[in-house]
């Protein structure tokens, strides 16, 4: 099914699917409805080809060569940096290539704490929405530097308690590190408001943008955060690609993260001085192919346009939420205003363990994610051990969502007896006769 109904008529999802080799894998014996892009997206051929092209025409170590391949590799690597910086409307000097969001957030935590920027009397503020990769790095630094960690609490529907946020964005808080979009609930945090509040109180803001960049244009100048982390592999880019962006003046005054080649100026056993940005934070041989692949992913997104992706995904989410809300045995998590659920939605089949739901979906060729989604504090807030999560991307179709619907009906028929115990007879009837 194409999405020809939506305003951007030139966006043809069937054409887009042709760009993704894995969606056209002739060796598969059953269909694939990939609704797990929030974990990692599939990669278009242009991204795979860009990496292959690098290996076949330009592979060498960067920054150190005076030979042709070294020049070619360096120029592709730095071109990739500028391309991604342009994509984020960011100063390229502050753009550091990392493996993933996790490494990016560890870089910020270590760089600040090691420099003495987080001491026993200081506080870091997170939120209950956070992914483990925005919790554990701070705890690891806390074990050495002894600062406090506090978390902005949530309302029952999973939205941030902004009154509590306001209270926490005050001394002794030095830094707020917060997600832009929840990987569990699909909700977008009021980031500009939080950043303004934090900056007013002289508090730095680090943003976990892993789940935002796949769905909407992010603009560093406009957002005005201090640090921004993202994973390339979630935005149609290769595994092993990710970005930390930071304001150059902040990165310059921070301690380096990893030590090694390329990030130094002079080395003696007594004392070592650092290279300029961005090299200071890129120790050792970088994954040039991953950077080149990520730049190709930026090209790919821009060729589709975020406007079209957003319109398409909005249409998909409406279809998905409508389907879920129509099934009486499904609990959807997040705000009642379904418009606020973007890109991904979490749910459970009442009385059935999420892993059983996941396995049955898989048997229908529907790939969803089940578990705690690396968000154990949020699971505790929701009062569930796990949820099932379906997420969308440019290549997802209504058919994929309909397949999920069929799989969920199958869950209901396999676990019918269990579900009956958890659902009112009336709504149960409704489903049975649907």
């Amino acid at each position: 099914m194409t999405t020809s109904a939506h305003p951007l008529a030139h966006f043809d999802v069937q054409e887009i699917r042709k760009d993704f080799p894995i969606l056209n894998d002739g060796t598969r014996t059953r269909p694939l409805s990939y609704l797990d892009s929030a974990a990692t997206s599939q990669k278009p051929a242009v991204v795979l080809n860009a990496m292959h092209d690098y290996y076949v025409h330009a592979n060498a170590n960067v920054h150190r060569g005076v030979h042709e391949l070294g020049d070619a590799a360096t120029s592709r690597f730095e071109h990739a940096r500028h391309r991604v910086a342009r994509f984020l409307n960011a100063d390229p000097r502050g753009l550091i290539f990392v493996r993933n969001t996790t490494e990016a957030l560890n870089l910020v935590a270590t760089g600040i704490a090691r420099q003495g920027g987080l001491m026993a009397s200081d506080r870091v503020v997170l939120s209950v929405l956070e992914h483990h990769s925005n919790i554990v790095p701070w705890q690891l630094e806390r074990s050495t530097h002894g600062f406090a960690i506090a978390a902005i609490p949530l309302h029952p529907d999973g939205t941030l308690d902004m009154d509590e946020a306001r209270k926490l964005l005050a001394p002794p808080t030095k830094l707020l590190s917060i997600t832009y979009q929840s990987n569990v609930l699909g909700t977008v945090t009021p980031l500009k408001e939080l950043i303004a509040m934090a900056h007013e109180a002289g508090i730095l803001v680090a943003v976990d943008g892993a789940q935002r960049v796949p769905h909407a244009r992010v603009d560093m100048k406009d957002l005005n955060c201090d640090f921004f982390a993202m994973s390339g592999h979630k935005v149609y880019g290769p595994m092993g690609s990710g970005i930390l962006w930071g304001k150059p003046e902040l990165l310059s005054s921070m301690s380096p993260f990893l030590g090694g080649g390329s990030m130094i100026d002079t080395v003696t056993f007594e004392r070592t001085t650092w290279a300029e940005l961005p090299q200071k934070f890129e120790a050792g041989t970088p994954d040039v192919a991953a950077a080149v692949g990520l730049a190709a992913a930026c090209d790919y997104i821009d060729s589709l346009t975020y406007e079209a992706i957003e319109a398409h995904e909005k249409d998909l989410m409406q279809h998905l939420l409508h389907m879920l809300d129509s099934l009486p045995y499904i609990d959807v998590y997040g705000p009642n205003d379904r418009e606020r659920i973007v890109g991904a939605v979490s749910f459970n089949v009442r009385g059935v363990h999420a892993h059983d739901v996941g396995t049955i979906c898989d048997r229908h060729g529907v790939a969803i994610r089940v578990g705690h989604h690396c968000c154990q504090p949020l699971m505790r807030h929701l009062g569930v051990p796990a949820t099932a999560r379906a997420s969308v991307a440019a290549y997802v179709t209504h058919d994929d969502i309909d397949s999920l619907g069929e799989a969920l009906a199958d869950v209901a028929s396999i676990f019918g007896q269990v579900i009956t115990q958890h659902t009112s007879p009336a709504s149960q009837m409704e489903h049975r006769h649907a």
Partner: protein
Amino acid sequence: MPEDDLYREIILEHASHPHHHGTVTSATHTTEGRNPVCGDEIALSWNEKDGKVSDIAFDGTGCSISQAAASILCDSVIGLPTSQALACARSFRAMLVEGTAPEDDMSDMAALQGVQAYPARVKCALLAWNLLAESLEAEEQSHD
């Protein structure tokens, strides 16, 4: 969908109405463990009397596979000499990990054979069984 190789009637029955759910009073042995993939936990408690598993029960929550496997475990080993209970756990493990055909006397245990086709779920089926095996193995060694 072909005849269900995973969610067989017998599994669903054990999962929704587990046998031996709870804890054995004044148990001689207790052990608990977690499936690291999902975080689900199971606790086993049993009484050993005259070298036999005279009573056994399980507690904890998890998916239907882990619950059914624990329920079947209790059914299967209750009354067995501990050495036979251990052999039983090893056969079960072999069936799921090495793909060994189930033995004749495995009864309900064999119903879980289908899990083999679901690599991500093997851990679920083994959760309780591994706990029992590890505990009995440790005991066996301490007797040596």
